[in-house]
């Protein structure tokens, strides 16, 4: 037997496919799978939210003992005024349960709807609007969230998301990062739809309250004038709220469709 030294011409032990291709195919698979799963679970949340009666919600959330740590309420007078405004809006919106307003001292120009009928308003908002109508629109927008029960829907989706991520990856790995980003995109889109729906509800409430919709876009316009420069191209895909100009245009269009008039808003007395 003669030994004839030679090397194999072809390496059979490794695959000669493009790893980059494999990477993109698998990544696309994961993204599609997660989006479908998230969408399906989102539907489950919607069903559960629709099934949960306002009475049950009002009973459930205080007993859960969740402490929404949003800050100190230190302006009782203004808070009472806001509470009064919210109650004035109630006949127009016919909310199923009473809403409690907390006014929190903060520079943030924002308001939030929390489960259990709690609305949080940050005092920065009061400085950003100059008319009662403008303020009422923002309050009505948050009441619209309560009416459409978006606070529960978004919280349910958030819950689904964190549970999914925890089940699948345990902690933070590269894959869960990319999943989080994908879903963030999806949630943002969903939340943008809910936001414009709340805008519409608020516009209707404003018309019902004042007989015209003047001042509805006041806050957005004041925010817009504060915005310096423009953020880079695709940031709005990740934003939970639609872009300001888009919201303003959308409100004008909706007002026109319904034949709502725009008159001068009332000055806000503080």
């Amino acid at each position, binding site marked *: 037997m003669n030994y004839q*030294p030679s090397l194999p011409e072809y390496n059979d032990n*490794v695959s000669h496919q493009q790893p980059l291709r494999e*990477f993109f195919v*698998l990544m696309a698979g994961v993204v599609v799978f997660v989006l479908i799963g998230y969408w399906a679970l989102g539907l489950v949340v919607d069903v559960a939210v629709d099934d949960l009666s306002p009475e049950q919600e009002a009973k459930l959330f205080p007993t859960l003992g969740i402490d929404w740590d949003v800050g100190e309420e230190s302006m009782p007078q203004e808070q009472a005024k806001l509470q009064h405004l919210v109650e004035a809006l109630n006949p127009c919106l016919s909310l199923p349960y009473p809403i409690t307003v907390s006014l929190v001292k903060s520079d943030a120009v924002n308001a939030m709807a929390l489960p259990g009928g709690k609305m949080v308003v940050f005092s920065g908002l009061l400085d950003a609007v100059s008319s009662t109508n403008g303020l009422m629109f923002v309050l009505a927008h948050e009441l619209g969230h309560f009416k459409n029960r978006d606070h529960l829907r978004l919280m349910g989706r958030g819950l689904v998301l964190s549970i999914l991520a925890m089940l699948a990856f*345990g902690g933070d*790995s*590269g894959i869960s990062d990319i999943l989080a980003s994908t879903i963030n995109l999806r949630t943002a889109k969903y939340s943008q739809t809910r936001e414009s729906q709340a805008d519409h509800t608020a516009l209707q409430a404003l018309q019902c309250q004042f007989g015209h919709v003047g001042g509805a876009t006041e806050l957005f316009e004041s925010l817009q004038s504060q915005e310096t420069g423009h953020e880079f191209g695709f940031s709005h895909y990740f934003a939970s709220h639609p872009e300001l100009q888009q919201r303003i245009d959308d409100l004008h269009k909706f007002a026109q469709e319904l034949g709502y008039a725009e008159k001068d808003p009332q000055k806000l007395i503080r």
Partner: protein
Amino acid sequence: MESLTIFLVLVALGFVFGKLAESRHYRSIHAREEMLVRLPTTSCKNPMGNNSPIIHAELVHGHVVISVDYFKQILAGLRSLFGGTIQSYETLLDRARREAMLRMKERCPTADQILNLRIETSSISKGENGDRIGSVEVLAYGTAIYFQQTSPPHP
């Protein structure tokens, strides 16, 4: 958004540098295999062919530790969700095995044969799930033998 950017940068870095390191390693492997191809290496217990007396025998071994790059790791992670062959680790193990054998052969360039070749693999990993270091160790060992008439014993 930032975490996504960091992730993509890491994947890109892993891909580029992993690819560079791999092709450089393969070039070196091919050249050295060419040089050492005349040293027969088998897993048999007995020498092949030649029946002249053995004047010297020794244990030779070579081992190597190679780390996986981030791109390969992510690709393997994705693959583990769907199942199938983890192709991204194939080249890693192929390189490690061949490098270990080359190092073993380089220890006894004047030997006539290497018998009873064994190859062992172990994974070296340290740390928690998220930031684990994934490396593979391959150890190759065998018995180098020297026949009487062909070459002098190894010093």
